[in-house]
């Protein structure tokens, strides 16, 4: 741990490789206390409403566990199912030795100034673990909520799906209705063990002046499956993340899906990198980006290191009204016998499609909304119906506001 401190100190001023540089001193980092609540229903209506938009259900219906952090304080952490652990990370580091093996194991603490800050000034985060062989029937929900104006919320999450387990997580990041300016630094490390299945669906619901820097790395062992979905349809000042996953065991599979909507003034730089290191591994990165004034960079990088791997990258962008989309798909085949492909397209809505729908009786606006919704409706195999419903709801909500 001491070593981590040292490395973090050294990296305190280290700029990130991509994304605009953020002056960390412009954000407060002192802890903000909030009371722990036994029953999420006790939260204010305003808070609950915002959390619901990010996929968090205060009634905890159809959820097998919940973690809610408000600013720097954990206000609720509970598992409702055997074989599932939901623990605040600071508590977990104190109480369980095994957590230390996972902490800063995949993400290097000295990656950049943001990871350094998450070490030097940690405001909790969660450890969610499904024990070997356990099937978590309902999704676990986690929410990072930001209320304090000008705060830098620095969190670290560890997610472990032990051998043969099945775990679904929906995590929402949201800001209080009045909040304008803030910074969210999120470090996440994902461990998908042998034959385990993990789906991780993240819905972001930020404020217009929010800065977001996420650093996440995952590892998938033999026969494991990692589904990583990211949805951000709300304005955000600057968002940058480039999650990486290592397929380190035979037959491991990773699929990344991202849906982005860029509003005026928003800057989103979102990518996905999957490294195929063992035979028969499969990877898929699918991204859909729409802008009506924001600037979006959609990156994707697939790296095939051994023969017999298969990977596909699909990146589609739609420019509705001003803004820009920069698609950067990359494929790196390092040996013979890899099968890798990508397709990227950036354009506007085809007039022909609008007219086709209009000739079936829709108005021009309805036709446009239908096409946009279709564009964003990506089939994600393996996702539980509750999570699919959450994604559909986010899409619906966004095109109501976009039109």
């Amino acid at each position: 741990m001491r070593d981590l401190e040292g490395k973090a100190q050294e990296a305190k001023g280290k700029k990130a490789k991509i994304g605009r540089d953020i002056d960390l001193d412009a954000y407060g980092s002192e802890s903000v206390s909030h009371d722990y609540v036994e029953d999420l229903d006790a939260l204010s209506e305003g808070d609950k409403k915002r959390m619901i938009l990010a996929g968090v259900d205060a009634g905890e219906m159809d959820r097998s566990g919940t973690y809610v952090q408000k600013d720097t304080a954990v206000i609720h952490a509970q598992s409702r199912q055997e074989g599932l652990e939901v623990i605040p990370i600071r508590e977990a580091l104190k109480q369980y030795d095994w957590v230390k093996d996972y902490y800063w194991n995949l993400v290097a603490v000295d990656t950049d100034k943001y990871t350094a800050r998450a070490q030097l000034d940690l405001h909790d985060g969660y450890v969610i673990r499904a024990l070997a062989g356990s099937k978590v029937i309902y999704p676990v929900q986690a929410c990072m909520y930001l209320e304090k104006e000008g705060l830098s919320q620095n969190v670290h999450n560890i997610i472990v799906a032990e051998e043969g387990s099945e775990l679904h997580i929906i995590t929402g990041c949201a800001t209080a209705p009045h909040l304008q300016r803030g910074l969210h630094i999120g470090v996440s490390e994902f461990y998908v063990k042998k034959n385990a299945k993990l789906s991780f669906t993240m819905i972001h619901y930020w404020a217009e002046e929010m800065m977001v820097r996420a650093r996440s790395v995952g590892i998938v062992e033999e026969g494991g499956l990692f589904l990583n979905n990211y949805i951000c349809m709300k304005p955000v000042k600057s968002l940058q993340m480039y999650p990486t996953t290592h397929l380190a065991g035979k037959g491991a599979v990773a699929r990344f899906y991202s849906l982005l909507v860029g509003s005026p003034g928003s800057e989103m730089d979102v990518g996905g990198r999957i490294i195929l290191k063992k035979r028969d591994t499969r990877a898929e990165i699918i991204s859909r980006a729409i802008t009506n004034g924001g600037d979006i960079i959609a990156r994707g990088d697939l790296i095939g290191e051994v023969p017999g791997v298969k990977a596909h990258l699909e990146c589609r962008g739609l420019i509705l009204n001003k803004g820009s989309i920069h698609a950067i798909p990359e494929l790196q085949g390092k040996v013979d016998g890899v099968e890798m492909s990508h397709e990227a397209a950036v354009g506007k809505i085809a007039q022909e499609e609008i007219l086709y729908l209009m000739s079936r009786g829709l108005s021009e606006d309805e036709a446009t909304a239908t096409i946009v919704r279709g564009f964003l409706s990506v089939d994600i195999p393996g996702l539980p119906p509750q999570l699919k419903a959450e994604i559909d709801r986010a899409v619906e909500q966004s095109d109501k506001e976009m039109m």
Partner: protein
Amino acid sequence: MLQIDDLQVKLGDKEILKHIDLEIPPGETHILFGPNGSGKTSLLMTIMGYPQYRVTGGKIFFKGEDITHMPVDGRARLGIGMSYQRPPTINGVKTRQMVQICSKGNVDADALAEKVNFSEFLERDINAGFSGGEIKRSELLQLMAQVPDLLLFDEPESGVDLENISLIGNTISQLLQRDFKVNSKKTQKTRRKERTRMGLIITHTGFILDYVTADKGQVLYEGVLTCTSHPREIFTCISKVGYEECVRCAI
């Protein structure tokens, strides 16, 4: 009633329809013949209201209303519907959703799809990877849900295999109220008299005439309606002497 008076249309800089006069009274179906590039599809697209087909002269009336400059959706709501030859694929929009859009949610998509043998396509993205014949069945399914009063068919039999041609022909007949029912309560004559729907069908091969009765045939040649007669007669004539004959009438 559809009434077209002295219609002139440009696509880009090119004049593609020249002084067209056409009338389809309620209950009538007309067949539109003509060689490739003669303007048949352009005429249908102009009636449907596609803006790239620029009306430079003349007028179109439907149900007594001047629709010459009405947007596409207005015409659809007024009761004009079209079966396209090459409709666009819309990613993420399912065939089932299209049926609901056409019917405003008022039909049972499953029951309707069964009629045109299209059930397994309901959950597919509309037109994505559909074969020629599948596109036709999808278009018919949408028209069955939409139930327009004027139906425009752009080569409904092209690309359809023999197995499906009668299905398509008979479905068009029903849509145009031109099917013959055994043991129907009303006499066939009464049914004919009560017929209200109008049709305009482009055909290349004439196969459709084996399934759908029609009142008139029209020949469009280089943007000019050159000939109006009994559809069978026109078809036979074209089969025997070819469209070269039309040149003589177009001058």
